[in-house]
């Protein structure tokens, strides 16, 4: 599709969607959101970009091959499960680290659950994009 308005708008929209997807990813532990939804939203951003500017530009904007992103995401998710071994827990037991913890405040919680969600985010992003790019290119 060759339209100046769409191309100009798509750049902005793609940026907004990717930022919003990261927000969704990070709030996911206690509120609606998470890696899966975040990944889908980010993928939507790149799909909008691909429709407006072509998949070649979209692939360049993504920098990495979508299949490899999905593979790396799977690796990160798996790593989040394996970390539990260091602490002698079962596979996929969540490990938590509270920064600046006080008596009545938990501080900033960091966990392997978030690492797992980041992995899911990348798997969904990579998988959806490799499918849509392939479809877009064969049309």
């Amino acid at each position, binding site marked *: 599709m060759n339209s100046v308005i769409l191309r100009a708008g798509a750049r902005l929209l793609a940026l907004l969607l990717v930022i919003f997807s990261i927000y969704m990813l990070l709030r996911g532990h206690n509120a609606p959101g998470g890696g899966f939804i975040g990944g889908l939203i980010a993928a939507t951003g790149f799909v909008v970009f691909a429709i407006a500017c072509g998949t070649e530009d979209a692939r360049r904007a993504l920098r990495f091959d979508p*299949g*490899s992103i999905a*593979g*790396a995401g*799977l*690796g990160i998710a*798996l790593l989040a*499960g*394996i970390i539990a*071994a260091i602490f002698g*827990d*079962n*596979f*996929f*037991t*969540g490990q938590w680290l509270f920064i600046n913890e006080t008596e009545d405040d938990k501080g900033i919680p960091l966990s392997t659950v978030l690492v797992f969600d980041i992995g899911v985010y990348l798997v969904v992003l990579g998988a959806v994009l490799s499918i849509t790019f392939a479809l877009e290119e064969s049309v």
Partner: protein
Amino acid sequence: MSWFLSLPLIIPFLTAIAAYLLRHSASGKWVSVAGSALGLVASIALMAIVLDKGVVAAQMGQWAAPFGITLVADLLSAVMVLITAITGFAVAIYAMGDVTEAQERLGYHGLFQVLLAGVTGAFLTGDLFNLYVWFEVMLIASFGLLVLMGGKEQLDGGVKYVALNLISTIFFLTGIGLLYGLTGTLNFADLALKVEEIENQGLLTVVAMMFMVAFGVKAAVFPLFFWLPAAYHTPSFSVSAIFAGLLTKVGVYALIRCFTLVFDHDIAFTHTILLWVACLTMVVGVLGAAAQSDFRKILSFHIISQIGYMILGLALMTPLAIVGAVFYLVHHIIVKANLFLIAGVAKRLTGGTEVYQIGGLYKYAPFLGVLFLVPAFSLAGFPPLSGFWAKYIIVKATLDIEMWFVAFIALAVGLMTIYSMTKIWAEAFWKNHPDGIEPRMEKLSNKWAQLLPIAGLAVLTVFIGMNPEPFVQFAERSAAQLLDPSDYITAVLGDAQ
């Protein structure tokens, strides 16, 4: 300790990721082989633990038993995981000489390892919904493998395969939903306790039938088998070998697990249906094979007929019959995967799989002929190979409870199996090639990669056949665990307290 249960799953996933990221380099296949070797070590370790300690269970994420996901390994699970690793290792080596570079670039090795992980997960899980998830992992990976670099024929087979498997999935999910509504749990061990308290036993039987259909499609039993011969002869040979060896057996395993542990409330009804299904599966499979002339199609129909024997073992539900079913499962995976691998070599040497249009293998590649005879005779049930003992136990079990007719069918089907194997032997091996081609071994680009796994599996077949005693004893212990699931239940739920 719990990590011994997780490792057979973690290793193939890690291997898959590494192999996928290395798909453009030549080292991808070596990663696959190394990962499969590691997986084999992990599954041997698991087997050693289960032999030593009995049923072991681990709660993933440390969520207590009926709520979280449990991994359980009893003897049946452990032996299935082990045999999956053995077959996976053999096929990973074979793939070095079989899979093209173009297929590798599309991620063949990654998908293959994900498939192994899916199969292993299905054997290890102690949770019905998790079993569904592993089925999906398997389905996605196997669909990818089916259509990889394929043309029209592969897509045709792939679409049939996926469509029918999705129907099975719908039955499976509906059954899971109903069962959860009835009992409020999906953990196998917890289900085994809760189903006894259900008042509406009629509805439970309906749910049982839904699972029978769902797993029946996966296991390719009569009358739900038709996706199998439509799909298994199309992909590359290493893919069809791993499919033939493992995928249907996951369905059989799920049937055995569910219909010994959960749905044993109305054996007179459910297991009678299984009995008829088993007999018809045996007969239809072997008759279907007789009508085929494609190497892999003949073998595909024989998968179906052999599945019948395993289901027969489950249907009879006597200790000896379950022993037979377990023994049969193990023997069949080795033999069938091996026959498909041989078909691949035969295709490479002679240029085809239509047995009437090829030939000359015995004259120019006699070693392959010997390697073919081992699994072929084993499949037909010749003593002293593994198939003889498997059939012997099943037939003995039917005779013990005086089911003469069923015993007759089992024996007759065995006889007709010989017919198909002789057809392959006479056409592909014995007669000269109609086009005058000399199928010499030198034609193989990577000869040892293809022949070593075949020889290894053949040696295993002979070894089981010559030494049946420890294997039968193992199957007896495994059958005892299946028929008296109290160990299984305490291993899973006991950890929670």
